[in-house]
């Protein structure tokens, strides 16, 4: 299982109004993606990254505590409102992989998921 670095930048502002196009930045062999979580969806819910390029996810919550679990790459984190949680990993295999909220958040919890597509 790949090692995952997950840490919280306390006291940062919450991201607002991020479109999926604006959410992604690639620089210096690293792709940074801003992801927002709210009951019961992620935005963006579809993410495409490149195999072998380090990915940094900057995840924030707009309402309650959520989880982010991407088990195929050993990535999981708690997402708390009022903070940005940053996770870093380097996808080493191509394909489409599911991620989901793993902190029960209400009647639509089971719908709160997305997909990461890793291309060659």
């Amino acid at each position, binding site marked *: 299982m790949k090692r995952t670095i997950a840490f919280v930048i306390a006291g940062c502002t919450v991201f607002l109004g991020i479109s999926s196009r604006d959410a992604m930045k690639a620089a210096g062999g690293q792709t940074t993606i801003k992801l927002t979580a709210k009951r019961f969806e992620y935005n963006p819910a579809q993410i495409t990254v490149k195999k072998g390029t380090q990915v940094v996810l900057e995840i924030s919550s707009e309402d309650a505590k959520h*989880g982010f*679990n991407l088990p195929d790459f050993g990535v999981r984190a708690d997402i708390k409102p009022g903070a940005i949680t940053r996770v870093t990993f380097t996808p080493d295999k191509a394909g489409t992989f599911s991620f*989901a909220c*793993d902190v029960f958040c209400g*009647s639509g919890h*089971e719908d709160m998921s997305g997909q990461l597509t890793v291309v060659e």
Partner: protein
Amino acid sequence: MREINRRDFMKLSGLGGVVFASGLGRVAFGLGASGSSITDDFHFVQLSDTHWGFEGPPINPDAKGTLKKAVAAVNSLEEKPDFVVFTGDLTHTTDDARLRRDRMTEFRDIVAGLNVKTLRFMAGEHDAAIDRGDAYHEHFGELNYTFDHKGVHFVVLDNVSDPQAIVGQAQTKWLEQDLKRLKNDATIVVFTHRPLFDLYPQWDWSTRDGAAVIDVLMPYKNVTVFYGHIHQEHHYLTGHIPHHAAKSLMFPLPAPGSAPKRAPIPWDQAAPYRGLGFRGVATVGRGQFQITESPIGKG
């Protein structure tokens, strides 16, 4: 760890149809939890994921009738079960605390129609994760507990009232202490809502610290786990410990990873109630059980 399908089970147990044995060894009476002989074979019924309060006609147009049909079906069994156990998600979750309690009261009233002396309840995340089990506790009592029945030691574990789906160190320690007094060949049945193993974490079908619980169970030779949550029949082995998931009584879900999302399987007008049902579990010896799956309607 490996998945076992129905064919494997039937091959190993030499049984056909929908009845099969969960144990892989000989069929024989053995010593029970306290070291005394199992004096009497018995069977119980497992009902799961009734999600009382769920509304969604394309998914289940008989949402208010399915549980009642299950109650009638259990009452019509030729041999009465010694008890009925509900393995969680008795009600469908709601943010409205009053409505949550109303649903629990309605559920309790309906299942009071079961013609069985003893009912055993357990919470699912829909019942308990929003308020850490407060409403559940008011209606059904403790979230984790044990009981003994005819030489079998039963353990009900709570892996849902913490919204992060953890059992927690305190409860794991409690389990360890509880089992310490048993011989390592005692017959032990564990009821949980979520799978204790990583069935499919991509769909949140796991318990975050389930491996620690399995470690505590592993020294015991005759442990069987029955659970719910995934709304389908499923059988799996972690080492020598079989885990059996039960069908729902509200809507079925796809097989793990077989669909882009874990969305409910829509109602099939050509086969109403397909994928819904309950099961009977009968003792057939030390640590061994026969499982009989029963559909609702034509299933």
